[in-house]
């Protein structure tokens, strides 16, 4: 009993710390995020022709969307986008998907994004997020980070980093999502 009382006392004491309150919010936030529908957040990003667009307006006419965060200096990102580029035509034909490559390059490399995308021959729609607003709104720690969005514009799946073959897993999920199946 002595041990329990000590534990209770010290727990109350620690709870006074702001850190623990944050921790409590974190745990609650984590728990809550696992059980709710997630929409694409609303922040401003730029297109390659310099127009400002709001991400809440991202739409693919009821078809699925892949949002892939990448950077020109990120080798695994480029491997992933290269691998998808090989099969992208088939994916579009079968599922109507649109891949949106969101570059998190800062101003050191934003001017490189358009020549890079074109030079690679990628057919993706590209958005620039040099201030990291979209990245922060989606909780992206590092790139590559890929989100799968269903026809109702709900984020239904995500994965980080890239290993060869990850694109096959994404494809399996994409086919289900395109049919309107749940992948939870």
């Amino acid at each position: 009993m002595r041990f329990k009382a000590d534990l209770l006392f010290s727990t109350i004491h620690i709870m006074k710390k702001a850190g623990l309150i944050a921790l409590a919010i974190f745990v609650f936030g984590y728990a809550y995020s696992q059980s709710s529908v997630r929409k694409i957040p609303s922040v401003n990003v730029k297109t390659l022709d310099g127009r400002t667009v709001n991400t809440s307006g991202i739409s693919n006419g009821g078809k699925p969307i892949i949002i892939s965060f990448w950077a020109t200096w990120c080798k695994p990102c480029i491997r992933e986008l290269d691998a998808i580029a090989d099969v992208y035509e088939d994916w579009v034909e079968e599922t109507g998907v649109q891949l949106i490559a969101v570059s998190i390059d800062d101003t050191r490399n934003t001017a490189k994004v358009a020549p890079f995308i074109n030079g690679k021959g990628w057919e993706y729609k590209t958005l620039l997020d040099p201030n990291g607003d979209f990245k922060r709104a989606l909780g992206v720690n590092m790139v590559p980070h890929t989100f799968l969005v269903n026809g109702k514009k709900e984020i239904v799946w995500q994965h980080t980093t890239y290993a060869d073959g990850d694109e096959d897993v994404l494809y399996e999920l994409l086919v289900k999502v395109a049919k309107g199946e749940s992948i939870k």
Partner: protein
Amino acid sequence: MNSRIPLTFLLVLFLLPSIKLYSQSILPQGFIPGEVHGNFQSDLQYYNSDTSIGAPEVPEKVLMRGFANINYTLGNFSAGLRYESYLATLQGFDSRYDGNAIPYRYATYQNEKLNVTVGSFYEQFGNGLIFRSYEQWGLGYDNAMDGIRLKYEPLKGVYLKGVIGKLRKFMGSGPGVVRGLDLEFSLADMFDSLFNKTNIIIGGGMISKYQSDQNSTYNLPENVAAFAGRLNIISGKFNIGAEYAYKINDPSAANSYIYKDGESFLFTASYSTKGLGILLTAKRVDNMDFRSDRAAAGSELNINYIPAITKVHTYSLAAYYPYATQPLGEMGLQGDIIYKIKKGSPLGGKYGTSILVNYSTVFGIKRTAVNDTTAIGESGTLGYKSNFFDIGDTKYFEDLNINISRKFSKKFKAAVSFMYFEYNKDVIQGFGNQYGTIYGNVAVADLTFKLKPKNTIRVELQNLYTKQDDGSWGMMLVEYTIAPHWFVAAFDEYNYGNKKSNKRFHYFTAQVGYKNKGNTFTLGYGRQRAGIFCVGGVCRNVPASNGVTLAITSSF
């Protein structure tokens, strides 16, 4: 009491999966209006002392740095915070972070035209030449603004930003107040029908900082303003951009208290069409170190950001000597060609071949004395004179590199890279006159063998050849991945060319990682060499270490 926090932290971490199940049973969907999301990261290291490579004894044995972001969104309203914990921070990061705090918290209201943020925020004007607040967790860099930001779009295509606040310094903020305005016009957004093929973006901004003058030697300006104007023309395959920035005299520790004004110019031009991209970049920087505390040193309290115009290398030996912008003065040029040899052509092969060529060179600026009696850069004077087009005599950096990558079959991909570089270590790392310039070559082969659809072996072979500094290095990496969850990797960096034969060490590391959806766990063991590590082009010095590392990241 502090010692209990990391324990609780870890406990919570391992309980997360069960909480997830629990929440699904007790919290019905839509129980609370709005959405809660965020992310989490923790980097933990157990240190062995390894005096041979210069890894010191760490009294705490285990060090940890971690954070969690929580963002809440409800309609037009959002709010969030970041809890950060450094107990104590890892070797190679600034110990002034040590402790626990919530240094980042904000609330935002936004509608179609207006966005108001109170609290912490990240923002930049144009390319950042006069203002950019941002963070790089991997580098321990964070100069978030704490104050108020207003973004307003009075007409379609017209963007107004106003900021006022203090820049973050470790767990607190710097003394100076930073305030500014930026206005941008995007003609394609304003006049859709007139500019449907060509977009012209015109922008301009102003930043002013205030810090009281308590210096007994000099009469220092308390308000320092900087201005920038920019123009960007995008038409079909062409994209041309330029930005010029000017800063009023700002004597500071960084520029040795000279009263010279500063300026900076950045120019980019690109042409790109399917299969080919060409980019040219030019830059001049003169006395543009701009901080919210004139006594600040290191990477503290930078108000502006001057991008380095050199390639960001990611192969470890190609990144061994990374360039860092010299805000006190530099002139540079960079060229990029990105070309894809078509698939099905004799040279391109079945899947096509990608070629990246990059060249960059950076020199100092030419400085001449302001008069016969004043030495160049003398404190309390105008410092020096420098003509806009005059290149200095000292070469800071040069890099010519080519990367060729090709998929040969469904089972085999290969990439090879070659690089020639010159790296003025004294200037770039601020050593005065000790090391001189390092000349070297790097060769890299990166081979990927797909054994089964989801099982892949990747091998990297790297060699850095140089006669200067620590001499030549070899590196080999073998990585085995089982998509979508597992990876194991082992790599060795070997300083075989060190002039001192007793310093020819192997730096061997083994790693295993697991990832699932937004979560990754990486466990590693081995030696890490001392060096400069960069993320997205910003760098920090890391001391040698030996031990166990655990990195956990989660996005939810």
